[in-house]
């Protein structure tokens, strides 16, 4: 029996655990007490990793219309479908957020070499790509918090319900709250939840409105705005006193952190505005910040998102969709994915265990889990420790197989090539973010919320100038 350290990729935190491996099979899960950040803690979901690896319903052979086929036949089928597609825009690839950096690199190379386009993206739970876009492109000058920062935070503002989405983060957050009597944990959320139970100040009601009020209150505290303009923001709020109190606390306490657990891009932008308005030594910790996939979205395919791919399938523009690891139907329940994929000529879905998407796919591919394949995960190289069941292949290997059937050799883009890529065009980024807002924000919120965000987004002026600009 050998022991291997590994990380959990169920959510973005990447908690560490130890896998006991016996004869290439996962035999036991042990808690990694030596890990500096998580100290071996796992949430309820993380405890199920062993069950996932050894699940009796793991897919083992590729299937076409429920009949087992060889990998060669499946690859040929997909390659032919890609060749006979109308044009290069009618083929799309979606890779799961838990793919290794190399596999996503291969997906990008696949899109560029075999499809001649960049219709490739990594899939996240609903709206996460929008949140990442909202944060990533506006966070210039804003510090990304580490778990250490959370542990030292004097005044933590939690947006949404971080305790429910990532319970392990509750450890450092509560440690910070209990470290001193001056420390406080505050929550901005739509309704009462697991986190708000521990809150000193809980701003209930609309998340966006409360965040906008908070930004307004902070700007007012710093004396950067005229009374007449500011008034409607704070006074109309439900808990105007609480908003003001929280704004004062956040301003006065150095080393404060905003923990973001919301899937709403406008709220994410407002959080950015909040930190920027409050000034130095404040930082943001986003729980929707998938370490593996965030870079890919920002570097390679900033214009493509899973939602856009589903929408183009709705319009009948897609012929072939290859989904690797992601379960689109469960991840995007409001988008009518079932309807959209019925318009495709070929849907190929790969997954470790049969899911709702593989049930609709004409070609079903067995894929490996992260402990069954070599690759870079969350910035650290890891090697396969468990043998994959049957003929399961990694996402990258599947794409390589399709490419070699088409007579193309795929290479992972090297790191230097990734880094020398041109940075994203500023105006383009602002346009994307604004489009996201227009979609998401109802009219009554847009007036207050987006004006703040816009100021920080487009003009990159200091907060005082921003206020003048809004005037």
């Amino acid at each position, binding site marked *: 029996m050998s022991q291997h350290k590994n990380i959990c990729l169920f959510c973005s935190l990447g908690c560490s655990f130890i896998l006991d491996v016996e004869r290439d099979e996962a035999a036991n*899960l*042990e*808690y990694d*007490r030596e890990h500096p950040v998580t100290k*071996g*803690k*796992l*949430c*309820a979901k*993380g*405890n*199920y990793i*062993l*069950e996932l690896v050894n699940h009796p319903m793991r897919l083992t052979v590729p299937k076409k219309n429920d009949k087992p086929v060889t990998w060669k036949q499946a690859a040929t089928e997909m390659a032919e479908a890609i060749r006979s597609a109308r044009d290069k825009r009618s083929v799309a690839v979606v890779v799961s957020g838990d793919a290794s950096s190399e596999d996503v690199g291969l997906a990008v190379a696949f899109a560029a070499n075999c499809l001649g386009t960049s219709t490739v993206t990594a899939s996240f739970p609903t709206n996460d790509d929008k949140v990442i876009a909202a944060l990533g492109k506006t966070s210039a000058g804003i510090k990304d918090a580490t778990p250490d920062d959370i542990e030292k935070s004097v005044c933590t503002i939690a947006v949404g319900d971080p*305790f*429910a989405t990532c*319970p*392990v983060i*509750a*450890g450092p957050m*509560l440690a910070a709250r*209990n470290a001193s*009597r001056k420390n*406080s944990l505050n929550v901005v959320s739509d309704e*009462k939840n*697991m*986190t708000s*139970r*521990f809150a*000193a100040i809980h701003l209930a009601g609309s998340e966006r409105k409360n965040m906008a009020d908070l930004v307004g209150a902070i700007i007012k505290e710093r004396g950067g705005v005229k009374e007449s303009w500011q008034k409607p923001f704070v006074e109309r709020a439900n808990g105007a006193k609480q908003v003001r109190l929280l704004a004062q606390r956040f301003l006065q306490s150095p080393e404060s952190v905003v923990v973001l657990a919301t899937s709403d891009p406008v709220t994410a932008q407002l959080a950015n505005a909040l930190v920027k308005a409050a000034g130095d030594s404040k930082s943001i910790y986003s729980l929707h910040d998938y370490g593996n996939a965030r870079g890919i979205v920002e570097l390679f395919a900033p214009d493509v998102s899973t939602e856009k791919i589903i929408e183009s399938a709705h319009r009948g523009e897609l012929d072939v969709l290859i989904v690797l690891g992601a379960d689109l139907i469960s991840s995007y329940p409001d988008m009518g994915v079932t309807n959209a994929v019925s318009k495709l000529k070929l849907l190929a879905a790969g997954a470790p265990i049969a899911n709702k998407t593989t049930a609709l796919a004409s070609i079903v591919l067995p894929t490996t889990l992260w402990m069954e394949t070599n690759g870079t995960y969350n910035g650290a190289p890891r090697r396969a420790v468990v043998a994959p069941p049957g003929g399961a292949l990694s996402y990258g290997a599947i794409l390589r197989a399709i490419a070699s059937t088409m007579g193309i050799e795929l290479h992972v883009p090297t790191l230097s090539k990734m880094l020398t890529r041109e940075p994203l065009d500023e105006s383009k980024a602002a346009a994307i973010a604004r489009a996201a807002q227009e979609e998401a924000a109802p009219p009554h919120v847009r007036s207050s919320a987006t004006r703040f965000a816009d100021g920080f987004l487009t003009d990159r002026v200091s907060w005082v100038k921003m206020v003048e600009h809004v005037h």
Partner: protein
Amino acid sequence: MKKLFVNLDVCIGCQAHSVACNRVNHNVLTMQSGEVPEEATLPVVCRHCESAACVNACPNGSMKRHDDGVVRRSMATCTGCMSCTLACPFGVLTRGMRLARHASSKCDLCASRVERGLEPACVATCPTGALQHREVEEVYEAKEVLVIGAHTIGHSPYVRRS
């Protein structure tokens, strides 16, 4: 003597302990979760009482309090009469249907893990460190005991500071 303690100040009710316990004890439910609505959540776990009602209720003496302070159930003699589940004042003991002979499930503080120098699974997994496996005397001396149940430490949910 080591026992399980719960720090109500940091228990977020995530129920990870329940899953970990299930996993280690082969899918037998020995730990559940309780909730004081809108006030606090806490794991419902065997307190290994000094004068245990389950020990007194057991008709064939398979439930015993051992010298190390742990109340254990002997699998060999348990007939699954469920007297202990009726007697338990905390509602901790449940009927573990997957066990052979319909015996009731019972927390033994992860004896097999503690022997190997590890913590009980529920303590090891607890994301906030609310569940602790500590010497009783140490906790009592530190005067950490407050309200709700004999083995609860930290502030009471009713006097939680803001």
